[in-house]
Each structure stands twice: as C-alpha cells, then as structure tokens.
C-alpha cells in the first residue's frame, strides 16, 4: 500500500503543472465554500443577534390586542403599570432583565426637512439600552427626568444635519388619535451598526414618551431578555395574565428564521454546484492520466497487478490531489474568513423589512462547517475518481500494452 502511494505521488509529479492546477481548483473551491459559509453564518448570526438585542428581545409581553406594526398608543392596546409588570417578569429565574418600552409613530422635522420615525420610550436605567448607550457616536445618553432631550440615530442626524445640542421638532400620534408636537434637543447620537434601523428610530425617556403621547402610565411592550434564549417557551408559559400575550423570539422573527433556513439550503445548493464543477476538473485530470498511461497500466497488469490494486493506485493519486487541494483550500478559506472576520465587509444600508441587517458583515467560520466542507470535498473527489480508476482496472492487458506510448 505504501509503495502504491509512493508510486501515486510520483505519477502526480509527471505533470506537475497539471496536478497543481487540479489541486488548485479544489483549493480555490474549498476556500470559497468556506468563506461563503462563514459569510452567511456571520450575516445570519449578527442579524439574529442584532434583531434580538435591539428589536424583539427574547420575549415580549403585550396587550392581547396590541399590533406591533401599528405602534398605536391608544390605551386599550397598552399595558398598564408596566414597571410593575416588568418587575414581576424580571423576578423569574431565567430572565436577565425586563423593561417597559413605549412605541409611537412620529415625524422629525428640521427647517424644511422631515423624516418619519418610530419613537421609542425607554427606561434609561435599564440594561436593555446597552446597545444604544455603548453605540453613542457623540453626546450622552438621556436621563429619566430629561424633559426635552432626545437620542437620534447617526444616519438620521446626518440626513437632517443635526449635531449634539441641535433642536428638532417632533410630531407624535397621541393616544386620542390627535397629533401633538414639541421641540427636543439632541442629547446624543447613536449607531447600532445597522443604518436601516438607526435612521428610523428616536429614543425618549419612558416618562417623557408617555406624557408626550398621552399614554399615561402605560407601555407598548415589556422587553425581556433571558440568560438562555432556548428557555423562551418555558418562561413564556410561566408569564400569566388574561390581558397579556407573550411572544417568543421565534414567533416574532419568523422571517429571520425562514431566511436562515433558506440560506442554509441555498448554501448547500451552491456547495453542490461548486464542488460538482471542481470534481469534474479532477475527474478530467484522472481520465487524462488513465488514457496517457494505458500502456503502463498494461505493464502493471502483465506483472500481475490486479484490478483492485490498479484502482487503489489511481484512487491514491486522487486522494493525494484532494489532500493537497483540501489543505491549501482550508488554509486559504480560514485566512480569508479570519481577515474579513476581523475587518468586516461593508455593504451599507441593506434594509429588509422585518430584519435588522448590519452595515458591515463579519464572516464567522464555524468548526462544524470546516469539518463538513473539508470532509465532503475530500470524499466527493475520491468517489468521483472511482470512475477513471475503474476504467483503468478494466483494461485488458493485451489491449493496454498495444496502446501508443
């Protein structure tokens, strides 16, 4: 066996450039596959994390009639005494934190420019605001008793040419179906990493948002984060109340989960296409080797080499080619993913309704993908090379010996 491998290695050396190119084809394919898997994984991972962290949380407690798409602040759709409800939810063991949030539709206007926004009233002291607090590009976070301070997203600030201390006018749909307006001063400008999300959101202290919109001591949702999101169902069951409904992150992000599943299927199809093309290159190389070495196969056969030994010889060549390609591809794919995983790939504003997509995608290579793709690439190459190997083994010695050298 060892000698067959030695022979196989030397056979590959006969046409170094051709062998190298074949291995390179596999290397390029594998590195692209790894990078692609890392890219999608990074994208879906950050999208899911951002959506949970910024928008949906792991759980939301709402009034049974509340429609999150309408952001209505009519009293019948809101939770009364939200801080008390949040406190009860936060007392559950698996809950990391629970905080009330009030959503209202509004329009920001400065001079002749205006933009539709969602007003989010938050408890400034809550840990849930860490993403906005840590994402402050300039200025400071709003305080609970701030009566005219507002936080705005960086893209909104840019488009309306607002800076810290700038004044803006905010229009809000009130709980009575009227419109109210007030001037606010920009206290801080935040960036969560997703331009689409940031350009349509302004933050007010919860008390101010309640007073401004006429919601009173009410909130749209209780935003809940858990220590482990897999416990969402059990925690949801534990939260009882006839007037409330509890939605888990899976229920709230059906589109995201669907896109995630779809991207997995999409990657699998792409993998098959790329591997298929690559394997064709390798099979072609092996077939050329078989046809070029027909006489040699005849000689080996004349010496008494059996069909399965000839198959082993050619499969050893394929395995060595595959090994070379896989090792180089693995290193290149890892290096690509690691580099772009640290600097990110800028895509800018890629807003899709129902998903938060960061402006910069950071590929994330999972060990599972590395193992799956590497082993698949190797095995598929060997399986595909069986055809040329078998072709060689079935040659009649006398016919093979007659072949042109």
């Amino acid at each position, binding site marked *: 066996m060892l000698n067959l491998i030695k*022979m196989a290695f030397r056979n590959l050396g006969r046409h170094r450039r051709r062998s190298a190119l074949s291995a390179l084809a596999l290397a390029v394919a594998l590195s692209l596959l790894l990078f692609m898997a890392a890219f999608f994984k990074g994208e879906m991972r950050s999208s899911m994390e951002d959506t949970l962290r910024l928008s949906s949380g792991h759980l939301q407690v709402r009034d049974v009639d509340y429609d999150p798409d309408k952001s209505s602040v009519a009293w019948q759709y809101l939770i009364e005494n939200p801080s008390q409800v949040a406190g009860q939810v936060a007392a559950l063991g698996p809950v990391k934190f629970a905080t009330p949030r009030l959503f209202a539709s509004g329009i920001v206007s400065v001079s002749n420019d205006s933009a539709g926004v969602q007003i989010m009233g938050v408890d400034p002291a809550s840990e849930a605001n860490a993403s906005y607090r840590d994402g402050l590009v300039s200025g400071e976070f709003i305080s609970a008793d701030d009566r005219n301070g507002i936080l705005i997203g960086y893209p909104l600030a840019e488009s309306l040419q607002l800076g810290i201390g700038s004044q803006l006018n905010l229009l809000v749909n009130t709980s009575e179906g009227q419109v109210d307006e007030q001037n606010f001063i920009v206290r801080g400008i935040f960036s969560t990493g997703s331009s689409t999300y940031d350009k349509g959101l302004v933050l007010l202290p919860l008390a101010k948002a309640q007073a401004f919109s006429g919601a009173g001591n009410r909130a749209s949702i209780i935003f809940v984060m858990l220590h482990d999101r897999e416990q969402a169902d059990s925690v949801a069951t534990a939260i009882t109340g006839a007037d409330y409904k509890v939605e888990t992150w899976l229920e709230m992000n059906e589109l995201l989960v669907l896109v995630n599943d779809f991207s997995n299927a999409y990657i699998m199809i792409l993998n098959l296409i790329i591997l298929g093309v690559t394997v064709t290159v390798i099979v072609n190389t092996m077939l050329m080797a078989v046809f070029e070495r027909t006489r040699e196969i005849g*000689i*080996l056969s*004349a*010496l008494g080499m*059996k069909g399965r030994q000839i198959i082993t010889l050619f499969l050893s060549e394929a395995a060595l080619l595959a090994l070379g390609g896989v090792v180089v591809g693995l290193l290149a794919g890892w290096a690509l993913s690691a580099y772009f995983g640290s600097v990110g790939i800028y895509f800018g504003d890629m807003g899709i309704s129902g998903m938060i997509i960061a402006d910069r995608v950071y590929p994330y290579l999972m060990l599972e993908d590395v193992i799956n793709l590497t082993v698949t690439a190797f095995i598929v190459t060997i399986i595909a090379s069986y055809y040329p190997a078998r072709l060689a083994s079935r040659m009649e010695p006398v016919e093979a*010996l007659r072949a042109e*050298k």
Partner: protein
Amino acid sequence: MEVAKVENVSRVYKIGEVETYALRGVNLTILDGEFTALVGPSGSGKTTLLQLIGCLDQPTGGSVWVNGNDVTRLNRNQRADIRKGHIGFIFQFFALIPTLTAYENVEMPLLLNGHSAKDRHERVMELLEAVDLLDRAKNRPDQMSGGQQQRVAIARALAPKPALILADEPTANLDSANGEQVMEIMTRINKETGVTFVFATHDPRVIKYARRVVTLRDGGIVENGAGQAK
C-alpha cells in the same frame, strides 16, 4: 516437465464484419529449461502466441496450459496470479515504469508477490548485479540507455523466480552490441538458473542463440524444432 502447452489454439480478431485469424489450431509444448525462439515474418502470430501463453489474452478456441493450469478456464484475477507468480515478461519497448528507479522497477513484482523488505532488497541487488547494473540502481528509465533499460527489464522478469520468461522481440529496439549483450545475459541466466525462455524474433543474429526454433507463418506452426529439456 512441461512448463507451458497450447492445444489446438486459435485466435480470431474481429474488426467489423471481417474476421482475421492470428493463430489457427496451433499446438506447442514448452519444456522446463528450454531456450526457444518463435520465428517468422511480421503477422505470422508470434506475438499473439506469446500473449496467450503469458495469460495476457484469451484464445478464441483451444486451451493453454501454464504450470499445469488450464488458464483458459481462469478469471482475470486468477490469470493475474499466474502472471505474477509464474511468468516474467520482456517487451520490445522495455516497458519499465517511468516514475520508478531501476531498483524499484525490479522490486515491483516482488512487492506484488508479498515478499518481505529484506528478501526484496537481497533479490533486487542480486539481480542488478547479474545484469551488471548495480551502479544504475537509483536511475530512472529516462536516465539509462536502451540496452540498460532492457537489462533492467530482464532483471525484473527474473525477480519472482518464474518458471517461464516470455520475451517479445527483446532486441528489436537495440543496436547490435546491446542486442548481443542482452542475448548473452539471457543465455547465461538460462544456463545458470534453468529458467525457461521463449522469445519471439525475426532477427537472424538472435535466432542463433536459440536451442530450439519454432517457425510460424500465417498463424500456423510450419516448423517445430524438438524441445530440449535442461
């Protein structure tokens, strides 16, 4: 003792609707230790007869016996076993494996026969010495002359200690001096070890070395010199 025997063997090649007889009802017995030349013009059936005796091809009719086995009844793998253990080949075009050194080429049949590393080394060195190529052990075929390559091929054919060595025009691609040298080596080995040689040729300078001459024409034996056992 019979090393090989062909009985009423015919070989027909069919190309389209046309049937060509390479051999017609040939009978031949090769005895242990013979040094036999198959002679005849091109197309007379010499190579076909060697291929049938060498289990490289199957006859259309008749039977071929090697070392007491009717090889026409054997499958591919069994015929490969017969070739591996009982028959050595020397081809006109040397037929060395280009990626292997002289040493490794000679070692190949021993590897296929499952000899130990120590046995292989001893046997290969002994054979390279016998064909006067010890200094070329590490050379690959493209680093050797035609004569040297053919001597490596002789050493390789002898490696598994076969009962029979078949040589198809072994000197056809060599100049006179190298051709003579190859024939002298074959003759010497035949005398020293008693291994049976059957070679096809139409070169009168080669025929003179034979102790038995079998003449073929148009697929049949026209003159069958008596076999000489050792």
